[in-house]
């Protein structure tokens, strides 16, 4: 694999004196698809929020492009803007679909966005709805707009927080295809949080298993699913309860 884009060292996150995440070491490689799997409450979303620099770790450091993010440190704007996230719920603005997709470009002061917006909407198969209001969309369409809104920015890193958790198989398939394409053509680094082992299997190059805030195992998808090193990983992959 190519160079490191993220490097996490002794990262811990505490909310109200409850430690929800403790990662001693985690590397994320440029251009890879890393899936983070684990049961709900394992700290997956917390980890993503920190990778997006939305909240700093309580302890430890997250190095991104040789820049260190830690408690009390604000990440420089231009670095922060190389990373974006699609959440589990689409969280569209109460505007037109086009206005939603151009939002990220506008706040960066980029003008004349019509073509880029159109291209992004075409990629998610919704170009014909550009002028409709976002609130008229179905769940799957809304999530595809949310994805278009992220990919129009051509981010270096795209974080996906359970992006297909509530969707039908058609939309799941479509979103998976789009993110795979993004990774293959633009070498966008993808970090995908999912509780769906099958989705991780379909998409990921490497998989990290998170349980009770701790990284139990990180390995290539092949090893992770076929020869898991940790019995808890093996149980999770089999679909057994591991509480």
């Amino acid at each position: 694999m190519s160079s490191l884009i993220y490097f996490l060292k002794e990262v811990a996150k505490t909310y109200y004196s409850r430690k929800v995440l403790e990662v001693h070491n985690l590397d994320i490689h440029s251009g890879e698809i890393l899936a983070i799997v684990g049961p709900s409450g394992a700290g997956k979303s917390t980890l993503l929020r920190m990778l997006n620099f939305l909240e700093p770790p309580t302890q430890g450091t997250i190095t991104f492009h040789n820049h260190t993010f830690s408690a009390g440190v604000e990440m420089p704007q231009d670095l922060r803007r190389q990373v974006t996230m699609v959440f589990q719920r689409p969280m569209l603005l109460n505007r037109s679909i086009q206005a939603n997709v151009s939002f990220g470009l506008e706040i960066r002061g980029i003008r004349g966005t019509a073509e880029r917006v159109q291209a992004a909407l075409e990629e998610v198969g919704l170009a014909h709805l550009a002028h409709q209001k976002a609130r008229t969309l179905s769940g799957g369409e809304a999530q595809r707009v949310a994805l278009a809104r992220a990919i129009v920015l051509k981010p270096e890193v795209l974080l996906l927080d359970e992006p297909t958790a509530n969707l039908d198989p058609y939309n799941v398939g479509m979103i998976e295809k789009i993110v795979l394409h993004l990774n293959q053509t633009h070498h966008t680094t993808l970090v995908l949080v999912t509780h769906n082992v099958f989705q991780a299997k379909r998409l990921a190059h490497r998989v990290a298993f998170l349980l009770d805030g701790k990284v139990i195992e990180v390995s290539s998808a092949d090893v992770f699913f076929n020869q898991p090193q940790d019995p808890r990983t093996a149980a999770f992959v089999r679909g057994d309860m591991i509480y």
Partner: protein
Amino acid sequence: MISVPTELIDIILLSMQVSGVALLISTLIGVPVGVFLGLNRFVGHRFTIALLYTGMGFPPVVIGLFVYLLLSRSGLLGSLHLTLIPALFTPGAMVVAQTIIAFPLIAGFTMAAVMGVDPNLRQQVMALGATKQQAALVVLTEARVGVIVAIIAGFGGIISEVGAVMMVGGNIEGRTRVLTTAIVLSTRQGEFSLALALGLVLLSITFLVNVAMLRLQGKSFDE
């Protein structure tokens, strides 16, 4: 006496001016304060909200009394004799009183509207690269329907208010007489038809202003 139409027009204009300027000032202060309170948590946050809610229900006549005491010649501000501080019994004093009445209404309702916006939306907007200011602006636009209600409530609170303008304005003919104080006066003088006519004018103004603001609200729904 209020008999000549030009006098009536002066009264209407003064009402609109005093309440308009007070509304503008209280909106310019109240909306940002409401957004700040809605988006941030700090020590004393709940206490500040309690104060704000109290302010929303404060009797105008009590605010009139405070402003009277502040602006009178021997008062805390009046004794400073600064050009920026209006004297008692001037339209400026009425603007001060009405600004204080409208501010908690606008800040309070704006805060509630902002709190009603899903906190995850702000996080999503930040994740798309917005600065804190840009994110606050997005939340404000998402809450726009409630914010316009806040401004309408502020306007309603002061255009119809009589206690404070009476006390700090003095209802001086040709100088500080506004619609509400004129209604009080003409009723006291037994000129009920005039009082009723003035009341109708006041109602019409309030109605028209509200229609205009609702159009603004409707427009923002459609965009």
